[in-house]
Each structure stands twice: as structure tokens, then as C-alpha cells.
């Protein structure tokens, strides 16, 4: 995105936002479908607005794996939220950055003058990822249904073999790069190998994520969360993946799950599989004035970048570097950072990459090392390792949370970035006046 020039009179404001608690998947489909998650957070957010749901110019929702009955989930949710029949709604998919893509798409339409007020967010109910029939089974079923006569039917039945029933687990497929044949955990192992990041560093980073989230919860700093209620009399008011008692010793006991024999990436130092949704309300200057909206932050700039799929976890530095160059920002000019924690190895890899003169020269087109990012300013309230990574939602969550961090700290500038399976990165620069 071209820089949003203040002088041009065009600006994109973030006026409010909300998300569901992130609910850890427990091996069975969770209590909420993706649309339920998005509706739940969305209606709480809308309840406190002084404009009507039908005032939105459009609704944009990022999602990577909506259910078969949630085709164009953005539209399903917009209607369920009471936006009315005449508010257009669409769904974006940029894998792990779908939620950030929705914000970017909203911002672009606001800048182009096509939209004034947009509800943008991301959602995924990872626990509802379907089990699919294999292509072989689908072929068998097709032949069986096509067989009209009894002998033809019998012939079709005779070709059935029990192994045909073995399901394809959509979640695992989705987390595997079909081009380079690595699953996401293995890309993190690649990065660890490249920069010499060891198991202890990963586990230490993971513990820090949990403890920071636990502190944020204890200190009530996550007021972006809206309580969610199921049909069975239960309610959900916090990210339940957190482990207050996490320690390096405990994490050391876990076995690697991707490179099972010799790897270092474990379930403990990876993001959790989780269900959740996050929303932001974006507005033009005109809409802010018209509806007298509060301003949480201003979206200054965004950037998308692509890199080798094998090192997709370094996507954030590839996206942030050109953005910062364009904005003439040095590392120290940024008050707070959010880099989505797909894997501890990958976030640490990003830090190492900027410190590495060779990598900066060869891959980021810099003359020398970019510098060292202060971990005290990074993911200050924990990240996806502790609270989970509902793929389509995380990009929106880190932008929303960045706004809250800036507000709570009375800080000016924050940069949120996310790595994207398939070898991309996205970044967004937020400022508070």
C-alpha cells in the first residue's frame, strides 16, 4: 500500500475493535463454528457503537477454513450481525494473514473513496477443520451413485476397500506447503538451523509468552476480549491456552512433533491450535466526523512481501524492512512490536535476520545489519504460543492488540507483522496521535 499521506486529507482510522477469547482446540470440534465466533465478538462490538450495523459501507472477513455451510463467511456473518441486506460483505484468504488482509482491503477501499466505514476482521475455528474423503473414495462414491442397475451397483460395491475410508485431515493438509513439501513446523526447523537457534532459546521464548499473557490477564490488560456464551450454560472470558506455570524445565520434556527424531520444534514452542475471531472498525475521516467516532489509532502504512516458502517464518522482516525504509524509521523509532508467534524459532529468526549483515544484504537489500529488536518491546502481552493462532484471525488480533498496547502505554508508534504459510509476510504500521 502506498503511504497514507496526511496532507492528502485521506486517512484511515481504527475506531474500535473486539475479539473473542481464543479457545484451545481439545481434539474434538469446539462449541462454536467460525461464523458463531465472528458473530459473537461482532455483536458485542456493535452493541457499544453509536451508529447502526447498517451504516457500514462493507464487511470484510478473513478466514482460511470456513465450514462448507459458511460459503463467503463474511456475508453470512454480516447478515447475522444485522448489517442488513444492503451492506456488501466478502471474505479474504491470505492464509495466516487473512485477518490482516481484511484490514488492508478495508483501508484501500477507504483510501480509494469507495468505503467510509468498514467492519474488518478475521476468524477461524481450527477445531472444526473437516475430515475429508480422499480422492480415491470420492471417485468410488461417484461411480457408485452413477451406477443405475443392480448389477452395476453390485460391481461398484465390489470395488470398495476399507482403506478408502481413511480420512484426509484438512488441518494437517492446510499446514503443509504443497509446493516445497514441508509442513509449517519444518519451515521453523529450517530457520532454526539457518541461524543456529537452539531448543533452549525457543523454550525460553515460549515461557516468556505464557508468563506475559498470564500477567496481562492478571492485570486486566486484555479488555479487547468480549465474553462468549455457548448453548450449554458455559461462558468463555479468557484465552484458555495460557499456562501460568510454564517453565523451561517443563517445556524441555516435550518431544519434537515435526522433525520427530532430531528436531527442536515442539508443541510447547509452537502456536496452539485455537478457535477465535477478531474485528476492527475502520473509518475514513469523513465517517469519524459524521458519527463522532473515537479514534483508537491511525493506520499509517502496510506492506506485503514474499520469500522462499521454506523460510516463510521470516516473512515479517521481509515486510517490515521496506515499510520502515519508506517511513524512514529505524528500529528504535518503533515503540512496540507485535510479531505473530507461529513458532518461537521463527520469531527469534526474525530478530537474528535483522542482526545478520549477510542476510540483510542478500535478502533484504540493505547495506548492513538492520539492528537489534528489543524483546522487551516485542509481544509485550504474550503471543500465539500462549493464546493460540486461529489462522485467519491472528492478523487482525495483533493489529487490534497493538492499538491497545499503544493506548495503555501512551505510546506513539507500533508495528504489527505476521508470517504467512507459503512464504509471505505482512506488516502494518499504527500510530496514535
Amino acid at each position, binding site marked *: 500500500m502506498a503511504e497514507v499521506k496526511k496532507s492528502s486529507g485521506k486517512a484511515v482510522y481504527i475506531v474500535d475493535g473486539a475479539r473473542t477469547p481464543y479457545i484451545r482446540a481439545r481434539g474434538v470440534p469446539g462449541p462454536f463454528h467460525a461464523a458463531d465466533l465472528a458473530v459473537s465478538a461482532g455483536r458485542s462490538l456493535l452493541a457499544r457503537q453509536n451508529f447502526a450495523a447498517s451504516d457500514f459501507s462493507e464487511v470484510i472477513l478473513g478466514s482460511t477454513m470456513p465450514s462448507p455451510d459458511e460459503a463467503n463467511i463474511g456475508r453470512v456473518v454480516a447478515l447475522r450481525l444485522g448489517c442488513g441486506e444492503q451492506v456488501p460483505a466478502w471474505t479474504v484468504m491470505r492464509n495466516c494473514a487473512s485477518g490482516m488482509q481484511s484490514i488492508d482491503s478495508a483501508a484501500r477501499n477507504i483510501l480509494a473513496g469507495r468505503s467510509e466505514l468498514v467492519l474488518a476482521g478475521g476468524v477461524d475455528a481450527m477445531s472444526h477443520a473437516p475430515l475429508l474423503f480422499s480422492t480415491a473414495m470420492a471417485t468410488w462414491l461417484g461411480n457408485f451413485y452413477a451406477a443405475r442397475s443392480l448389477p452395476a451397483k453390485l460391481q461398484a460395491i465390489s470395488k470398495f476397500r476399507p482403506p478408502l475410508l481413511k480420512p484426509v485431515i484438512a488441518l494437517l493438509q492446510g499446514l503443509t506447503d504443497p509446493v516445497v513439501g514441508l509442513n509449517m513446523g519444518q519451515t521453523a526447523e529450517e530457520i532454526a538451523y539457518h541461524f543456529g537457534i537452539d531448543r533452549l532459546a525457543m523454550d525460553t521464548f515460549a515461557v516468556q509468552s505464557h508468563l506475559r499473557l498470564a500477567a496481562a490477564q492478571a492485570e486486566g490488560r486484555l479488555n479487547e476480549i468480549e*465474553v462468549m*456464551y455457548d*448453548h450449554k450454560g458455559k*461462558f468463555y472470558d479468557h484465552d484458555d491456552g495460557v499456562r501460568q506455570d510454564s517453565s523451561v524445565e517443563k517445556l524441555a520434556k516435550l518431544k519434537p512433533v515435526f522433525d520427530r527424531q532430531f528436531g527442536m520444534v515442539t508443541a510447547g514452542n509452537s502456536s496452539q491450535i485455537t478457535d477465535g475471531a477478531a474485528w476492527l472498525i475502520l473509518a475514513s475521516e469523513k465517517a469519524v466526523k459524521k458519527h463522532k467516532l473515537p479514534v483508537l489509532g491511525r493506520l499509517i502504512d502496510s506492506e506485503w512481501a514474499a520469500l522462499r516458502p521454506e523460510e516463510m517464518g521470516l516473512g515479517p522482516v521481509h515486510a517490515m524492512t521496506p515499510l520502515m525504509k519508506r517511513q524512514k524509521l529505524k528500529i528504535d523509532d518503533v515503540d512496540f512490536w507485535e510479531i505473530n508467534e507461529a513458532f518461537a524459532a521463527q520469531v527469534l529468526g526474525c530478530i537474528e535476520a535483522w542482526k545478520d549483515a549477510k542476510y540483510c544484504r542478500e535478502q533484504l537489500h540493505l547495506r548492513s545489519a538492520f539492528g537489534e529488536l528489543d524483546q522487551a518491546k516485542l509481544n509485550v502481552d504474550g503471543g500465539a504460543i500462549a493464546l493460540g493462532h486461529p489462522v485467519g484471525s491472528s492478523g487482525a488480533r495483533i493489529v487490534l492488540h497493538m492499538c491497545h498496547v499503544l493506548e495503555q502505554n501512551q505510546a506513539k508508534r507500533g508495528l504489527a507483522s505476521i508470517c504467512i504459510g507459503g512464504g509471505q509476510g505482512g506488516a502494518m504500521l499504527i500510530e496514535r496521535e
Partner: protein
Amino acid sequence: MAEKQMKYKNWLLETDASGVLWCHLDVAGKSTNILSTEVLEEFQSIVETAENSAPVGLVIMSRKDNGFIAGANIDEFIPLQESGGALEHIQHVHALFDRLEALSCPTLALINGFCLGGGLELALACRYRVALDDPKTRIGLPEVMLGIHPGFGGLMRLLRLIGPIQAIPLMLTGRSLDARKAKKLGIVDKVVAHRQLRRSAEIMLEQRPSLKKAGVLQNISNLPLVRPLLAKYMRSQLEKKARQDHYPAPFAILDVWEKHGGDDRAVLKAEAESVAEMFETDTSKSLVRLFKLQDRLKSKNPELEFKAEHVHVIGAGVMGGDIAAWCALQGMTVTLQDREPKFIAPAIKRAHTLFKRKLKQTRLVTAAMDRLIPDHKALGVEKADVIIEAIVENADTKIALFKDLESRAKKDAILATNTSSIPLDEISTQLNNPGRLAGIHFFNPVAKMQLVEVVYSAKTDKQWIDKATAFCQQISRLPVSVLSSPGFLVNRILTPYLLEAVALWEEGVSAEQIDKVAKNFGMPMGPVELADTVGLDICLSVSQNMADTLNIKIPEQLQQMVNKGNLGKKSSRGFYEYEKGKLKKNKNYVKSSLPDIEDRMVMRILNECVACLHEGLVEDSDLLDAGMVFGTGFAPFRGGPLHYAKARGVENIRATLKDLEDKYGERFRAHEGWQQVK
């Protein structure tokens, strides 16, 4: 085909290019189609035309969006009940429907919305029925609810169409079906979308599909040897639900079928005679009266334009939570507030159960759940059109709450309390405009009890009473305006009745016997079981609340039981014992020979009713009767307590009261208001 056609007041006829005669019913001057004598007379002329001109087919449909035909004209019942002549009228309609059925061309009823009672009976006399696939389509024979049974040939035709095993339960309960269920039972032939209504009729009449033959089961169930057995079984099931001396009509349905089942002409003849007889029963007269009263409570104030879209309910306990769920079910956006999510979560669960039961289709349940928004941050206050408070019964808390609400709510939003014990004027003390506060008092369970007391005080502005009334009508409840005084209307009248039951129990009459006597009188539930169900703590607090002003003596035992924590059903022990929420009744209770059990309970109700009427708590005795029937289920076949009193005779009542006063003391002293009861 150009054809000279008669002009009708209520029917519009149209012959299409293929020669099908389309009869559109649009009853003049009414919002809903009903089969009045005039409509039927005109239809007779239409049938005559069809007999002579032999159209290719004949279609009956409605020109009103809300439905096909809602039934016979109830207003015409009343003169028939008073002066007789029902049989003649019915036989006349039978002859007409027979002629419709005998037309040489195929006939078809196109059903949208209501198709009830006489409307369905007319449709059943057609060869085909096609129904609109819409939640508003309701098909059924609810005549028993008026103390009669289907009488325009519907009894015979439904039996013939779907067999006794399916047809009889439908007629006995009077329940109505949606289009899909009606199709499943074989009452309608096709269920179609609106876009296909006309086209499906054209195709049906062109293709003339053959009619389904009676199934084996149907033939067997009509066999002379099987019928009495089946009838006996059905009768025994029916007796569990209703008594023949209270509600004779459903029993008459069984009698007609048992005697004549399988012989259509004989069933028709017996049906006409039987329904004419039912017409003249006191039960039917009472139920028709209640139906008219219900209409009165439903009638809208034409000068008031009030339509709520958003309701905010404060307090997610049993009452608040259920009120919120009911409003969401009725299509409103509802925010449900309580202090913390944990207090709201159980209400959301109950709402989901209600929605599933009422709406069935997943997408409708989802939509209702989406409309019900848990709101522990009280965000709904500023946006709501109606705010209902249902928090703990503490005056100070309510006073503070309404003070805050008044400053935050929209200027035109209703501010209402669901209190059942705190006077309105006390709650409104801190308001800038005390005249704005109204009571909207629901009964438990909200989804079942139709009555809502709209409570006002001398200070309440009329506009807020009117708006509260309109709101209750909007959510399909029956509002009765009641002046704020301890217990309002329903609890005020129930309390002496319940306390008398406790007194009887203290005197040694078993709970089972007390309840039996009350049910024999016609109560839906005995007073002892009712007290247990409501909760003895609540009964006690309601009684205490009224004790000072109304001079009621609270039985000591009640206080003791509450002290011991025996609170009724909810603590598994009250007057009865409960196992997993199920009442354990002792069938072999010792029968007390104590006299006057029924009169002691009933007279306390009647005397209190007269007191309420005398104090002007309600506008008139009809509203009082409606309140007691729709709020407590007071023996509907008796038409309400005051209707019953008048039927029994005021002199008789006063004498009974005098007798009881001599025996049991001044609580039975006839209220001075009896002098005005005529």
C-alpha cells in the same frame, strides 16, 4: 373465456384461459378471512355456478396475506348458543360442502397462513390441498378449544383422509400444524414456495393425480371389532388430560367415531348432531366467552403507534432470563444484563432449549440466538425501546437502578419493572418523572403463561400504560391493566386460596386430597403442588408482603417449613417429596372426612376477586376473569371466577360464605362488594 359473473361482496371470481375457475376469498371489512353465514351463502351461489358451467377446475384461495380462512365466525356462535338453531345451520353447511365435493371438476384449496377450523373443513371438502411453505402457515382443527368439535364435515373428512390414529389426536388436542407436518400426515398434498402457489395449482388440476387410498392400518382401525378397543384406549388417555363433565367435546369426537367409524355418511350425520349438542353446553359458552375476552386483550389501540425493536432486560434470573428469551423468540433484539457473565450463561442455555423446541429449524434457532445478546456491561440501556427490570426484590436497589436508567435510556423508551411485591410509587421515588414507570409483570413459566399484568399507580402517565400494553401485545402476551397494590391481581387472589389449602393441610387433610379436590373443580394444578412449584419461600414472602394491608394470617407451618429449608420442588422437599424433580404422590392417602374442602378454597378466591373488583384494581369483571384464567389457569370451562359466581348465583355464594364464616371465622366474611355483583 368470457363469462358473465355475479358480483360478490366477499369473493372475487376469475376464469383463466384454460377454463379453471379461481375463487378468491377476501372477506369485506375484516382483516382475516372467516366463514360467516354471508360468505357461505355467496359460496353456495358459486358452487351452483360451477355445477351449471362445469369449469375445468375450481380453486379456492385467499386474497389476504395473513391466511386462508381462520375458521367460522365466532360472533355468530353466540346467538346460536342462546336461541338454538345450531343443528339447522350446520346441516345447511354440510349440504353445501357435499355439493362442493360432488362437483364434476377437480377442486383445490390453495392454503396460505391460517387454515383453521371451518377453513380446513372447507379445504378438506376439496379434492386437493396445496400449502404455502412458510412458518405462518398453520393447519388444524382447534374447535375443542371452544368446547365444540369439528362440525362442518371436518371430523368425517379428516378421519377419512388420514385415518383415526392420526386424525383423532389432532382433533382432541386442537393443535395446529405447519405446512410440512401437514404434508407428512397427508392432510395437504403439496407444500410449495410462494412463487409456485399458482403454478402448482394449475399443474395439479391439469394432471389430476389420483388420490391416495386409505392405508391398511386405517382400514383395520375402523373395523367393528377394533374400534371399541382403540376408542377405549384413546378415552383412557384422554381422561388423564381432561374430565368429561368439564370438557365433553373431545369425548364426543371419540363417541362419534366409535359408533360410526368407517361409515362416512353416518359419521357426517352424527357429527352434525353431536356438535349442535356441544354448542349448547355451558363449557362451550364459557370457552367462547373467554375467546372473545382474549380478543379484547389482543385488540390494539388504533391511536397508538408503538413498535419495539430492542428490549433490554436487567436481571438474568429465571424471570428475567425467560422474559428475554421470549422477546427474542418474538423477533426482537434483546440485550440481557446481569452483573457477571456467570449469571447470564444459564439463561442463554434455557433460551436455546426454548428456541429449539419452538422453532425446530436450525437456521431459525441460530437467528434467535443471535438476537439474544448477553450484556453484562449494560450497553443495551441507551439503545432499547423497552427496558424491563427483573432483579432481586429489594426496593433500594430498584430505586437506584431506575434513577440511573432514567438518565441513560432513550426519551421514548418504556421503563418497566417486573416486581411482584414492591409498590410502583416506591420504586419511582427518585425519578424526575415518576409517571414514566410502569409494571410489566410476567408469570412463570413465561413461555407458557399468556397473561401479563400491566401495573400502574395513580402517578403513572396513561401513555406509558398504553405503550406497555402495546408492547405486551407485540410479544403475543395478553395484557391486563392492574392498579398497583400488594400482590397486584393474580397473586392477591391466589394467596388466600393457597393459604386456605395450607390451613386444610394443617388440619390434617392430605396434600393429595386437597389437590384432587381443586383439580376436580377444574384447576390445572392443585394449590399444594402449585405452592411447592412456585417455592414456599416465595409464597411466604408474597403472603407477608400482603399480610399487613390485607389482614391475612400466615400459617405457622409455612414459616417453619421455610426455616427448615423445605422450599418445595426446588429443594426436593416441600409439602410433597420430589425425586429428581418428579413429584412423588401417595396414591393411597387417607381420605379426610372434613367438610367444605372445595368451598373453603373456592370461596376465598371468589371473595378476594370481589374485593379486587370493589377496589377498582381492574376495569371490570370480564378483565378479572380473563386475568385469572390466563394467569392461573382457573377452570376455563367455568369461564372465570366471577362468571362462575354469577352462574352459581350471588345469593348462593353469600349464603355459603356466611355458613363458612360461622364455622371457620371472619376470613370468610362476605366482602361488601358482593352487593354490586350482578
